[in-house]
């Protein structure tokens, strides 16, 4: 058996003829496709999708959801999720505005308070999930409702005010790039590096992929889970700061915008498995941008805003269905005999062991319907020795 055939045998990269792209690449290909289609549609109306106003609009839309979705990515990677982010955004916008109270000198204090509050909520979420073993769906749903109850009781309308300097966070632009988007991208980069460069980041993939394997490898899975939720809430806190900056005040009612569901949609659209263990920030940003471009294009085309909801729902389901399809295709199974009919769904994706040079390959199987002849001599390649097998054994 030569070295080269062996390479094919064991290290075989499964044939990727049908799907050449990883999930992240696929997201950005889809993004480019949507941008092109959008540009054409907008162009047919005699407008330019890429003029400054439209570009700024796209980026502005992406920043708020971007913050939340980055955080959500951490939670989902760990096979968790966070349904409380929308409420955290609302709460922290109020915390920011009421702490700052229009005083420039208190901006730092306000930011600190937001990070403290959001971090504490994330800590609580993480601990309830990791220590009390409550289902993440229930934990964060409950946490969201608790915050909602507090907000509904304490704040009927806008509260607090944000100094003009801080409002710049919401409105300043660096060329065509809004400051908030730049900050969001910086956070994305930080998150990206965190997942790629820190041990905890590595371990998030392990916890989401297989918590048991992670534990057996000495990873403290509970800490990783708590970290993910703290980061998730902190990102939601940043989004709350952005809301406060844009509105100039804290607004409890922004939780009505279903940010938690939008962020999950963006993350899943970005190719991160809802069941954890695979994905990343880059895909999430792709997902966020897809949603933002769609919004902008619909806006220019004056599509009914409610139609956007419909389409968004359809797109999310379709995207996950496509990913699910790819997952199914990927299921590998050992093939001992070639499939005579070639009709099996698993045959194209499963590893094929080519007849190798040193040891003799198997004979092709008899065609369907023809009585297979077990009495025929055939070779096994285990050691290269030929074994003669009788149909009715020696015992008779």
């Amino acid at each position: 058996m030569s070295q080269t055939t062996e390479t094919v045998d064991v290290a075989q990269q499964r044939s990727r003829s049908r799907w050449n792209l990883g999930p992240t690449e696929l997201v950005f290909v889809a993004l480019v496709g949507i941008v092109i289609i959008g540009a054409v549609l907008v162009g047919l109306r005699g407008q330019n999708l890429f003029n400054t106003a439209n570009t700024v609009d796209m980026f502005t839309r992406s920043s708020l959801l971007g913050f939340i979705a980055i955080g959500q990515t951490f939670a989902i990677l760990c096979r968790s999720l966070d349904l409380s982010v929308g409420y955290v955004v609302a709460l922290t916008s109020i915390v920011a505005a009421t702490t700052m109270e229009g005083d420039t000198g208190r901006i730092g204090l306000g930011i600190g308070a937001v990070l403290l509050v959001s971090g504490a909520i994330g800590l609580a979420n993480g601990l309830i999930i990791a220590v009390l073993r409550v289902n993440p769906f229930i934990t964060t749903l409950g946490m969201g409702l608790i915050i909602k109850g507090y907000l509904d009781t304490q704040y009927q309308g806008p509260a607090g005010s944000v100094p003009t300097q801080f409002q710049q966070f919401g409105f300043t632009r660096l060329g065509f790039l809004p400051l908030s988007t730049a900050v969001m991208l910086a956070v994305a980069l930080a998150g990206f590096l965190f997942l790629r460069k820190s041990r905890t980041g590595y371990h998030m993939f392990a916890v989401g992929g297989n918590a048991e394997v992670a534990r057996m490898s000495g990873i403290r899975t509970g800490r990783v889970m708590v970290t993910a939720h703290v980061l998730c809430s902190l990102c939601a806190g940043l989004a709350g700061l952005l809301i406060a900056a844009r509105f100039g005040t804290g607004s409890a009612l922004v939780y009505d915008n279903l940010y938690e569901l939008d962020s999950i949609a963006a993350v899943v659209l970005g190719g991160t498995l809802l069941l954890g263990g695979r994905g990343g920030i880059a895909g999430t940003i792709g997902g966020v941008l897809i949603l933002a471009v769609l919004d902008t294009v619909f806006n220019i085309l004056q599509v009914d805003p409610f139609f956007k909801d419909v389409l968004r729902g359809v797109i999310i389901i379709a995207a996950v269905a496509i990913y699910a399809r790819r997952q199914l295709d990927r299921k590998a199974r050992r093939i001992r005999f070639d499939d005579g009919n070639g009709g099996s769904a698993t045959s194209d994706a499963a590893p094929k062991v080519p007849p190798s040079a040193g040891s003799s390959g198997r004979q092709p199987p008899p065609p369907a319907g023809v009585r297979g002849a077990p009495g025929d001599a055939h070779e096994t390649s285990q050691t290269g020795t030929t074994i003669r097998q009788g149909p009715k054994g020696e015992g008779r």
Partner: protein
Amino acid sequence: MTTLPSGPSAGADTGTTVVRMAGIDKSFLGVQVLFGVDLDLRAGEVHALVGENGAGKSTLMKILAGVHQADGGTVELDGHAVSFEHPLQAQHAGVSTVFQEFNLLPERTVAENVFLGREPRRRGLVDAAQMNAATAALLEDLGLTWLSPQTRVRSLSVAGQQIVEIVKALSHDARIISMDEPTAALADEEVEVLYRLIGTLRERGVAVLYVSHRLKEIFDLSDRVTILKDGALVDTVDTARITSDELVKLMVGRPISSFFPDKIEGTAIGETRLRLDGCGNAQLDGIDLELRAGEITALAGLQGSGRTEIAHALFGVDRFTRGSMWIDGRRVRVRSPRQAVRAGIALVTEDRKAEGLALNQSVMANARLVLDAVQPGQAGRRVQNIPGILSSLDLVARDVDQEVRFLSGGNQQKVVLAKWLATEPSVMVLDEPTRGIDVGAKQRVYSLMRELSARGVAILMISSELPEVIGMADRIVVLRDGRIAGELSAGADEESVMSLATGHAMGGEQ
């Protein structure tokens, strides 16, 4: 077999005893499974551990690995007594284990898996370059240059994944590696790669504990072999000084007692109920099989030889893509378990908890599940028989509303049997029907099989336990590598079954 390193070569500390396990006892909840077993491993040797199912191989290995703790006896590592509470402890001490089920993250790369939980860092950040380089060095060192550290594990074949497991184990500076049936899931071509790797390990002075059912591998690979039977040590011998015939004799050859009930008076072998004609799919080829009324046919063979695959294909869990299947003389196509049930087939699966039971449901709910699922309209009449069936099986439960997860293994198996008996099948396939159940329940299963065949049910029993195969079957069909290797009539001895299953008698070894 020219590619294999022949025998231990001269490493620095080859031959020194690194592990000495002495007088190991182990019980699980009162059932003793190991009786004072001794085992020693030397640096640079491949030490095979053989025995039938339930002989205690896996338990012994898991004690060494720190998964279980011995009740009695000592484990010494380099002459110092050790007691591992957790697999991680064993790993730190240089004892690594490759378990049967993979402990890998498919979505991560080879390097990321190898260094999981102890990624190298520089200035607080994971140093991926170093990690990849270290993995590459490790791979190169083992002659595995074709495997890239940055390949995703998911895209590797089963053998590739197995090799990553071993590399992961080695990366802990393991001096002792145990492997539990490492070839069970491998194709023949892939086995070669594993052979070469084990050869390299031996040259490095690593002690390899190799658990396998496959005699050929044992003779191909091992320097010494330890044989366990019924939880006790039979012998440890140099592999070169023993023939495969002798080894088989040491492994089996238990006196068949009156443990197995006799055939019930008047049981007659009748007409063919189910016939497979040249059936095959990706795992099977050229399967001809006839199951006759009143006959117990045993399907024997090694793990991975295709036994369960046959059961799954004829039950519609998988499909035959070639050949034809006939029930009572009519050609049928079974595409789902539902159709199989309708055709009168029952399947008692190998994995009771994962495939046979809904553990949080009651005894009754489980027992009537097939009736509920397949014939809801007529469930009523047959459901009334269930309490009778359960009590005839001597089920021990608080009442039929008790959840089955609270029952012992034997009683759980009785619930599974009741579930299928309630459908009054004409063909009953039993995949490892006595695995993991106590002696009393085993006897009840055997006598049930006799009763069923007396009633004209055609029975296909899949079993790894040779005494059971010999003691119960009217006819033994032996599988090897997805094909029928031969057929033996009742009264065959264990050695001839083993010979067919391993193919050793035809000159397979060295």
